[in-house]
C-alpha cells in the first residue's frame, strides 16, 4: 500500500461513495472508478473508429489487407 495526497472534499466524496456502493475499501472504490474510466475511454475510441470507417467507406477486412 502507498499514500496519495487528495483534498479533504475528495476524500469525503470517496468515503461516501464507498458507503453507498457497499465497498470494502477506498482502494476498491478507486479500482472500480478506474475500470469505468477505461471502459469509457475504450467506447469513445470505438465510436471514433466506427465514424472514421463510415467516412472512408471501409469494411473491417480492408484494414488488414
Amino acid at each position, binding site marked *: 500500500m502507498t499514500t496519495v495526497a487528495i483534498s479533504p472534499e475528495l476524500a469525503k466524496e470517496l468515503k461516501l461513495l464507498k458507503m453507498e456502493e457497499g465497498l470494502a475499501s477506498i482502494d476498491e472504490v478507486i479500482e472500480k472508478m478506474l475500470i469505468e474510466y477505461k471502459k469509457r475511454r475504450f467506447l469513445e475510441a470505438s465510436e471514433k*473508429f466506427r465514424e472514421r470507417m463510415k467516412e472512408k467507406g471501409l469494411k473491417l477486412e480492408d484494414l488488414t489487407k
Partner: protein
Amino acid sequence: MNIVVDTNILFSALYDPSSDAGKLILFALERRVDLFAPESVKLELEHGLRKKLAYAEAEVRETIAALPVKWVESGAYAGAMDIAKGQLTHEADVPVLACALALGHEIVSGDKHLLSIKPKIARVWRLGQLIKEIQR
C-alpha cells in the same frame, strides 16, 4: 487467464464493442482476462489507423492506449520465431504464435491459419468459445 490476441480481434472490438471481440476487451478491462500481443500487431493496428483511416498521431496513440493489451517486444519472442515459421504459411500470423510460445500463453483468433495449429503446439481458442469459458 493469459491470452495472445491478433490484429483482427482488436479491430473487430473497436468496430463493435457489443461483439464477442468487444466483450473480450471489456473482460480485460475488468481484469477477468489478461491480453497480450506482439509488437507486430501494434504496428499493424497503427498502420491501419494512420494510413487507411487517416488518424492523426495523437488519435493513434489514444486508440492504442484505450486497448487493454500488454504489448510484447519482438526480442521477447525472437527465439520462438523459427518454430512458429515451421507451423504457419501465413507470415503475418507468425509473431502471434511466436509470442504465445515464448510466453507460454494461449491464443484467441478467428484466423483459419492460426486455428489450424495443432493443440500440442499451442491452444488456439475460437472467440465465442473463449467468451463462454470466461463467463463460466
